[in-house]
Each structure stands twice: as C-alpha cells, then as structure tokens.
C-alpha cells in the first residue's frame, strides 16, 4: 500500500481510511453491536470492540456470518477460505471424494447462505465441464474455490473476453468491462456457459492475444486480480488456451496461492498437527460467543465431520 510518497507529503486522512477497508469493519462492528445490544452491553463495550478487531486481525471473524459479509473484503475472502481449510482438512487427509452438493453443504455449515452458483463455478474449474455430480478431491476443489471466490470480478470479466475472442473479435474491439455491475456480468456469463461448453472442446484462443487483453483489463480494472506475471507465465506454456484448463493452472499456481495467502502450498496442504488443537479451541470459542447464529447445530455438524470414516 502506498501511504507515503517519496517526498513525504502525507496521504490525506480520508484516503488513508479508505485504503484498508477499516471503515467497513467499523460499520459492521457497530451493526453487530446494535443487533445484540443486551448481550454486548453486559459483556462490556470496550471488550466487545477489542474482541471484534482481534478476531478480524486473526481471521476468526468470518465464521457463521452471512455471505455478503464474507465476500465484502479481500481479507474476509481469504479468511473464509482459510477457515474452510482448517475446519475440513480431515477430509483431505482421509482421501474422500465429494460431490458439488456435498461441498456446498459443508460450506453452508460455515456460512448459512453460501450460494450454490459459486460452488458450481469452482467445480467446473476442477471438472472442466458442466457435470455437477462428478466427485472431486478436497484440495482440487478448495484451490479452485479459492481462485473463484477471491477474484470473482476478474474471472467474470475474463470469461467475457475469452468468449469474445472465441467469437472471432479482434483484440482491439474486445470490450474490456470495468465498471459493469457484477450481477450483470454474472447473468451474461451464465447465458454463455452452455455455448462455451461446446466451443471448449473444439476451439482454443491464442495465448498472446488473451495475454494482451488481460493486460488491458488489468490496467483499468478497479478490482483485484492475480499477479500479471503469473498469468503470463501460464499463458506462455501453451499454444492454445482453453478457458477451464487456464483457470485450473491458475488455481494450482503456487505464486497466486501465496499472493492470496490463505492456504499453504499443495505439499503442505495436509500437514499441520497444531491445527487440530486450534480447531478445538475455535469450536469452544464459537459455541460460547453470542455472534453465532446457529451455534448448536453448526458445532454439532463440525464435530460430526471429524471422523468421516464413521459416517454412514
């Protein structure tokens, strides 16, 4: 973050405040306080704010919150992915393969209104086709979900660009969406999914053309996007780019994973004995905190996941 320019002229206060989503968290803290006035007043106001901001700092704040909250800031998105990993890492360890709907259920245990659509998009990246009931490994699914959940605006824009290129438009006329609303992008993208599925098998796109368009997109894009060098690297490895294999390569790309900072590398994905201790502490914390909406059933759900082999 550039908070200081070279000649020491300070960044004005409102810019500093706007930079880091701090105002968003302050607003949410007050909203939560108003929603639970009685409990938090007895708890103590200063202690409440201390706990709220500590939990944001430690990425513990997204559990059982609504979808709009967890996707509101990059920090929240990364925290949610990390929490999902911490809670369900055992599945990866046991080697179970789950379906899209099963993953969605797991997600909804942590976020009650997590949308199916987001899960389907992640699944599509793994499966490279529009089949919903294919089974996926935990790590494949989570890395794909991470990519789509962390950079949704960018991926939506990129899909449109890709489709335009497939349709034969020259790169100069490809429309680079910058301020189009996310919902509009989503609906357009959804319409084109089935079209795209057919073309996927037959055509690809020239990597350097796509790289050019992506560069143009990044130059003007207001939202965050994966590091350009990583994308160029992936594009440089092939003669023809197919959309979902491109996304899968991005999902597996270690630098992008580190940029997001939520998950460990694939090699270390399943290794971490301390996490088990942390998980127990987390569950204990959540079950007594007033902020959990469905503490009883969710905690029960989490505990049931622990020895997955015992489920029937």
């Amino acid at each position, binding site marked *: 973050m550039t908070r200081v320019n070279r000649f020491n002229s300070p960044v004005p206060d409102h810019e500093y405040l706007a930079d880091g989503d701090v105002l968003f968290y302050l607003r949410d803290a007050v909203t939560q306080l108003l929603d639970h006035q009685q409990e938090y007043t007895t708890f103590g106001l200063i202690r409440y704010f201390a706990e709220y901001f500590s939990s944001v*700092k430690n990425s513990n704040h997204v559990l059982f919150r609504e979808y709009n909250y967890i996707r509101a800031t990059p920090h929240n998105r990364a925290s949610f992915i990390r929490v999902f990993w911490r809670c369900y890492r055992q599945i990866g360890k046991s080697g179970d393969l789950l379906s899209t709907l099963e993953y969605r259920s797991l997600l909804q245990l942590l976020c009650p209104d997590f949308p199916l659509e987001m899960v389907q998009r992640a699944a599509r990246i793994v499966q490279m086709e529009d089949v919903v009931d294919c089974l996926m490994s935990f790590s494949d699914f989570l890395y794909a979900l991470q990519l789509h959940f962390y950079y949704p605006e960018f991926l939506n824009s990129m899909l449109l660009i890709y489709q335009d290129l497939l349709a034969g438009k020259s790169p100069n006329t490809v429309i680079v969406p910058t301020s189009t609303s996310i919902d509009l992008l989503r609906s357009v993208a959804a319409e084109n999914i089935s079209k795209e599925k057919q073309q996927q098998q037959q055509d690809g796109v020239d990597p350097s053309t796509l790289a050019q368009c992506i560069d143009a997109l990044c130059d003007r894009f207001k939202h965050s996007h994966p590091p350009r060098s990583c994308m160029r690297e992936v594009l440089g490895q092939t003669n023809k780019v197919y959309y979902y294999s491109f996304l899968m390569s991005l999902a597996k790309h270690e630098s992008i994973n580190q940029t997001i900072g939520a998950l460990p590398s694939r090699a270390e994905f399943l290794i971490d004995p301390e996490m088990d201790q942390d998980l127990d502490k987390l569950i204990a914390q959540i079950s007594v905190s007033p902020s959990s909406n469905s503490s009883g059933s969710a905690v029960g759900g989490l505990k049931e996941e622990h020895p997955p082999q015992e489920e029937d």
Partner: protein
Amino acid sequence: MADKEKRRSGATPPGMPEGNATKSDSDREFLSRAGVGELLRGAILKMVEARSDDPIGFLADHFCNLASVSETGTAGYSDVDHFSDGPLSAGAQEQQHLNRALWHLRLAHHSQRSAFSNNVRVAYDLLNLTGPLRRSGEVPQGPDVSCTDSPTEGGGGGGGVKGGLYTQTLQCLCSEGGVPASTSAPLLQRLHCQDHEAVPYDIFRHGVLTCAVFSDYIRQAQRLYAEVCCPDEGPASRALCLSVLGTLKEALETSQGCEANVCDNSNMKVNSCLEGNVKALCYLEASAKISPYRLGQAMAGAQARGPGGNMDAKEFENAAAELFITRVKVVS
C-alpha cells in the same frame, strides 16, 4: 441495519413509518447512551495520527490496551500512588511501558514525519515515568533538565526518560530493524545516555530517529551488497565493494548538510516547510548519486582497476555502518 429493518418489516407494515423511525431512534439513543461515538472517535483519531501500516491490528491493540487498563483499574500514568502499591513490580511495569512504547514507535515509518513525531511523543510520554504529560513551558522543580547530563535519580526526579530505558529503547529499535548488535554497537556508543541521566524529549527523538534511519540504511547496504555479489561466486571483490562504498559515502555527504540542519531546527516549526523542501532536494541529489547508473559506473571503474581480494557481507556492512556513524553527533 438494513437486515434488521427487513426482519422487522414483517411486524411493522409499510403504512406505519413510525415503526422504522423508532427503531433507528432507539439505536441512536443506545449508541449515545453507551458512549460508542466518543469511543470510536478517539480510536479513529489515534489511528489516523499513527498512520499504522496495519489499521486493523492497530485498532485491535488499541482496544485491547484500553480494555486491560480499565479492567485492572490502573488509571494511566498520572497516578503517582500506583508506583508504591501497584500489583506489578517496578521492573515489570517498566518492561510493559517499554513494550508499549516500542509498539508505538513501530507504527509509522520515519519518513512519515508528522505521524512518526506523534508516535515518538506518545512513546516518550509512556516512558517518562515521573508524572503527567509535560508540555513545553512547564518547568519541573528539580534541576534544570534542558541540559542533557543532569544526574537526577531515576524514576522520581526531573521530567525526563531514564537514561537506561532510553538506551534500551534504542537497542530494541536497532535489533528489530534487522541490525546485528555488533553493527549497532558503535552507533549506540554515540547516542546513549548514562543510566542515571534524565533524557529530554529532543535527545530522545534524535536518538530514535537516528536508529530508525540507521536500520533502513543497514538494510539498504545489505541489499546493495546482494546486488554486487553473486552468492554462487563467493564474496564480492574488494575493489568492487570499495567503490560501492565510495558512492555511498558521496551520497551521505550530499545529504549530510541537511541532516545537521534538521537536528538543530527540529523545534522551529516556522522553518519546517522550508526545511522539508531543502531536505527533499538533498535526498534527490543523494539518490541520484546512488542510482544504478552511477553504481554501474563505479563498478565498471573498479573492475578496470583490478581486484585486490574479496570482501564479505559482514565487512561490507560494518564499513557501510561506519560511514553512517561517523556522521552522528555524539550525545554528551
């Protein structure tokens, strides 16, 4: 808020606007009764003053500190009584103050002058155990503490930070900044004060600023060495290093005039704008001298002259440190 109103809208039909109005009124009432506004305002002001790189972390620490202060009942540092019957020993308390002061000093980079100055002020007041915040103009009853070496008793005498605490602060700043103890030792020799001395604000600020700049400088020197030397080929050639050091020295000399002015004029707010411009110019010139082009020139020149052995990272670092330290005024 919108969610809550949506939930309520089942109970209050749209034809009754008073329902919604009452709800937000009662919210406002609750917030003002609980004092949330002042609490947040204070927090935001502190945050903007400190300009920390991690605003969320800052708020978390700020509220945690506030919570522990209000919970343990210690009313800050203006309460003289708690030195005699506080629950913590004097040593542990001092350590606590030191940690908090260091935390404040870490918040903003020294190049952000006003935020950094604020934080130095807060840290100084934290470490100044002898009473309420003393602003300029207040004369303490003890010996005149505008002279730097008044030998007052620690903890109870004049209005300054204990020499020992001051030296400890500087040591922590250097080591946290990545400077090994051996490299920073000569610097600290010049800056330190005796344990029994009371350190006034100007000296404190000068010392802290120098250490912060020094840490940056050493890190820069380490990076420079990494550029010059390829790790596979062993330590860099001596001639090369010497010419790089020469360029560094030139750069420092260019900026030296300004640094000296800054130290002397630190209290003269009238000149601060002018001083800012002058400094900016000096840094421009200095960075031009240290630019890759000049460096490249120096390196080419060195290779032509021929090497005379190798210089390893530690030696380079020490030599660079020496260049800096010779320019530091000794605190007497």
